[in-house]
């Protein structure tokens, strides 16, 4: 396997990605703050007409409205909850990235969004099992954003899948990110981190994006959050929401037990809860022919 692309070329592609919208950025900053509430979310959303319209459209979908017409943003946000608002805001803000068909991973359009959404829900469900407090909203947002680097490096990985899969199966690489680094000089975590930095995302989110495959490499203060998203990512892949060729081709960090107190009986319950919530959210967002957001 020989490196075909320079890091400079990949960074040039990254800098062509539009900046995240001010309202989405503001929401991400708020999600990072302990003790924030729905009024904080309403105040940000009401300043963004397009986001407000999208939220009202979703809340009036058959899955949520149940025959009532909802015209108040406050009511809409109360019904939908912060997770769904954050999901819509981020998917609107980074729609071009989420909806990329990841040809370099053999993933279809929408697969990245579904994987990230399922990871987000799973990460949030794991937070009560963290040995140290983890902000559940931040875990959700970290899950949504953790793999955005794939949307940027995917084009550079076109034509490499068979070679990478063989290299992993013959033990040459421990996991898919290691093969990406060999092929490109960077992996999707590095590039996602560069994007997060360029967007000015809060530091915990930058760390989640950079260390979600190897959370032990994160600074101690970020590790609980990174482990939560690491396990959420695995749950998403295990339950059929992967992003193509790299699905299941990564390793669990067995040191998660130092940060997360899960046992054999907890995991099936979490998986079932994630499935239920994932279906509710995707059904709501796909009503009225929107497809994946």
């Amino acid at each position, binding site marked *: 396997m020989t490196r075909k692309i320079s890091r400079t070329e990949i960074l040039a592609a990254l800098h062509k990605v539009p900046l995240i919208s001010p309202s989405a950025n503001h929401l991400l900053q708020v999600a990072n703050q302990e003790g924030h509430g729905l009024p904080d979310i309403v105040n940000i959303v009401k300043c963004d007409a397009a986001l407000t319209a999208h939220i009202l459209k979703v809340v009036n979908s058959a899955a949520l409205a149940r025959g009532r017409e909802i015209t108040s943003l406050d009511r809409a946000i109360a019904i939908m909850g912060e997770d769904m608002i954050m999901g819509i805001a981020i998917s609107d803000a980074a729609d071009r990235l989420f909806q990329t068909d990841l040809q370099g*991973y*053999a993933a279809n359009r929408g697969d990245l969004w579904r994987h990230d959404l399922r990871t987000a829900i799973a990460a949030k469900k794991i937070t009560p099992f963290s040995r140290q407090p983890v902000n559940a909203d931040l875990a959700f947002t970290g899950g949504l954003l953790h793999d955005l680097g794939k949307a940027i490096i995917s084009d550079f990985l076109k034509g490499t*899948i*068979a070679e*990478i*899969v*063989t290299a992993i199966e013959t033990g040459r690489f421990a996991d898919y990110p290691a093969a990406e680094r060999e092929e490109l000089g960077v992996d999707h975590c590095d590039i996602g981190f560069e994007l997060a930095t360029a967007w000015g995302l809060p530091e915990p989110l930058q760390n989640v994006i950079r260390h979600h495959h190897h959370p032990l490499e994160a600074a101690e203060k970020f590790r609980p959050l990174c482990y939560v998203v690491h*396990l959420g990512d*695995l749950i998403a*892949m*295990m*339950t*059929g*929401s*992967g992003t*193509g*060729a790299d*699905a*299941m*081709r990564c*390793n*669990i960090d*067995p040191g*998660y*037990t130092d940060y997360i107190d*899960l*046992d*054999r*009986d*907890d*995991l*099936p*319950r979490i*998986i*079932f809860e994630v*499935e*239920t919530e994932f279906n509710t959210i995707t059904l709501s967002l796909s009503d009225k022919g929107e497809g994946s957001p």
Partner: protein
Amino acid sequence: MSNLKLVGVGGLAASKTAGDTIKTFALGSCVAVIMLHPPTRGVGMVHVALPDSSIANGNADSRPGYFADTGIPALLKEMAALGCVGPSNRSLLVKLVGGAKVMDPNNVFTIGKRNVLAVKKVLWSLGMGPLAEDVGGNFSRTVSVSIDTGQITISSPGKEDWQL
């Protein structure tokens, strides 16, 4: 005319209509239980995600296919409705695909292995057992079954398709 019946996570489907294909995507730790009934050319598939419905607190009824203990009886019921089950279940050939593993020394994330074992236990309790299986490994599988030929095709990105 070819007709594709897609099975989602926790879903199931059965058919004996010529030209039909039953398919499920991206099996990670989930297990596709495939039943073939050669006398009628009937085929069924259930996409099992978890071993045991007891964790669903009574909510398994809406998605019986999600669990091994409810999914396999539900698939048998579908097969019976198509006339694909004889006086015993022994005329059914069963094959298993999926159950990819996560190497977790703490034995918590080993859902793939637990799914395969749970599926086998349910089958054994019904006097059945898998004739063939393609399970384990650390990769995702997509599987389809042709009603015309009973041929099971497995695919995974970066690998040539193979048959079971």
